[in-house]
């Protein structure tokens, strides 16, 4: 029974394709998987948008949307209908073809990332040897669509937004890759399935997730920073910083094309959270051994949605950085730290089992973090201040 619940989607898929002739079955299975992804993640996107609007509202001591349906749960539907019925405006001087292609390209590319994510036991669409590389290769292509959108709009805000976005995404791709590299180093594989399998072990009922190691924890934080920047979320949402650039690279988009950008952004966030889950949070494995009976896909989606909540939480709290600070942060702080983390991971490996490696690795990381943070703040003349009063 438990086994069945765990594999319900796989079994369902097999049952469905069993109606087809044998030679069609593999292709049909893949198509079915694609279909499932294309249906599931926009649905999750709708839920996330609702969660974001309600959650932000609650953080700001207001209700959030609560008019469409009970507790406002049909708000995403209303939003969807609105964006579908809105006029699609293309600026006269815009480059029509590129303007049209940009959102389409973004959404296609973003969905491709899901192909390699293991969303549950035996629930990977394509088990690829170089799955991680595929994911990053696909992720890198989104920059192109951002550029296309910004450039083709022929709007200064759009162009500035696109330039910012592309610069930011390129800069943060390096720490993103390097922080994931620690995992590859420890697992010895680029295959996401194998990475999850390596974490799906338990000692005293506790999982072997990589986040529960010093280097894994540091790597996770760095990865989180890099993903936030990569998906243009607050506090790194400069490309669409509405107070400066109106809406950044999609200023000149309206109607459904705008909705596609919106979808692309959120689906991209989810896919990159899914990767983070896979790499650091044990993918579909249960957080405690005794919870192993819960279907694996529940854990995966639960963890992804949790990371989305953290994204929302950060958005509700933090102001955004400035472009040069963002770059400095990437190249002078995050990148060196990822390199140090890489070395720490290597040290961990060579120190062998024992408590010493915990102490040494944590000490190195904390020391480096403190030193770099302090010096960075001193260099920028940043720090808390006290004030004098005139009587």
């Amino acid at each position: 029974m438990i086994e069945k619940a765990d594999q319900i989607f796989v079994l369902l898929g097999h049952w469905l394709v069993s109606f087809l002739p044998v030679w069609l079955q593999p292709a049909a299975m893949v198509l079915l998987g694609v279909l499932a992804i294309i249906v599931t993640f926009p649905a999750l996107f709708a839920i996330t948008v609702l969660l974001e609007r309600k959650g932000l509202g609650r953080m700001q001591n207001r209700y959030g949307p609560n008019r469409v349906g009970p507790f406002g749960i049909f708000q995403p539907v209303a939003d969807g209908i609105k964006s579908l019925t809105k006029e699609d405006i293309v600026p006269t001087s815009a480059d029509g073809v590129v303007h049209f292609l940009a959102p389409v390209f973004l959404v296609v590319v973003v969905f491709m990332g899901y192909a390699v994510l293991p969303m549950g036991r035996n629930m990977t669409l394509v088990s690829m040897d170089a799955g991680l590389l595929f994911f990053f290769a696909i992720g890198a292509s989104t920059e192109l669509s951002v550029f296309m959108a910004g450039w083709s709009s022929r709007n200064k805000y759009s162009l500035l937004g696109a330039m910012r976005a592309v610069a930011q995404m390129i800069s943060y791709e390096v720490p993103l890759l390097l922080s994931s590299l620690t995992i590859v180093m420890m697992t010895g594989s680029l295959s996401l399935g194998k990475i999850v399998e390596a974490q799906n072990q338990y000692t005293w009922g506790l999982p072997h997730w990589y986040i529960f190691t010093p280097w894994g924890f540091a790597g996770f934080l760095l990865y989180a920073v890099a993903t936030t920047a990569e998906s243009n979320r607050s506090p790194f949402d400069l490309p669409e910083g509405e107070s400066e650039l109106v809406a950044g690279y999609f200023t000149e988009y309206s109607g459904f094309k705008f909705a596609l950008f919106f979808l692309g952004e959120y689906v991209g966030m989810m896919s990159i959270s899914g990767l983070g889950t896979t790499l650091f949070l044990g993918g579909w494995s249960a957080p405690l051994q005794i919870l192993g009976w819960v279907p694996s896909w529940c854990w995966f989606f639960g963890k992804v949605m949790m990371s989305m909540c953290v994204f929302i939480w950060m958005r509700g709290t933090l102001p955004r950085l400035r472009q040069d600070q963002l770059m400095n942060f990437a190249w002078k702080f995050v990148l060196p730290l990822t390199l140090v983390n890489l070395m720490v991971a290597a040290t961990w490996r060579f120190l062998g089992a024992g408590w010493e490696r915990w102490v040494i690795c944590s000490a190195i990381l904390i020391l480096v973090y403190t030193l770099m943070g302090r010096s960075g703040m001193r260099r920028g003349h940043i720090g808390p201040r006290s004030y004098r009063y005139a009587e």
Partner: protein
Amino acid sequence: MSIVFFAIAGLSVAGALAAVALKNTVHCALALTVAFAGLALLFLELDAQFAGFAQILVYIGAVAILVVFAILLTRGSETPKDGIYSTKWLLGLVTASGIFAVLAWAVLHSTWALPGPEGAPTAAPAVTVMDIGNALMGRYVLPLEIVALLLTSALIGAVIVAMHEKESAQ
């Protein structure tokens, strides 16, 4: 298989031609990306996953972006009013045909790694990322290091050039 190959090849060639022939420089850069993507697909079609993804990651994710960045920063994105063809097209033609000749010669005279056209490609050994890593760190470690050194020096050089400009600006 051949249909797939021709489709991909057609895509790449079309992209490359467009990159040369289009008027708007940004369009050219985007067409170049299509050509890159075609190449990546060719690699993938040959079961060279690593090379294919690396092609996408590096060429589409970085090089293409670099190209568009350069175009934007140098105001090249404006469509030229007069023709796009250089007056020295003859020289270009000669160079291009020379390069083509060399490449053709190299391709024709190299030995086939795979069985001949009549043999099925299933005989190709599955090259994993691990194998590539081992090869790079073992047999090809010297070339790798030389390339790394070259890139590092290029990076430092770029930084120095940028810094110099900044100092003179102040």
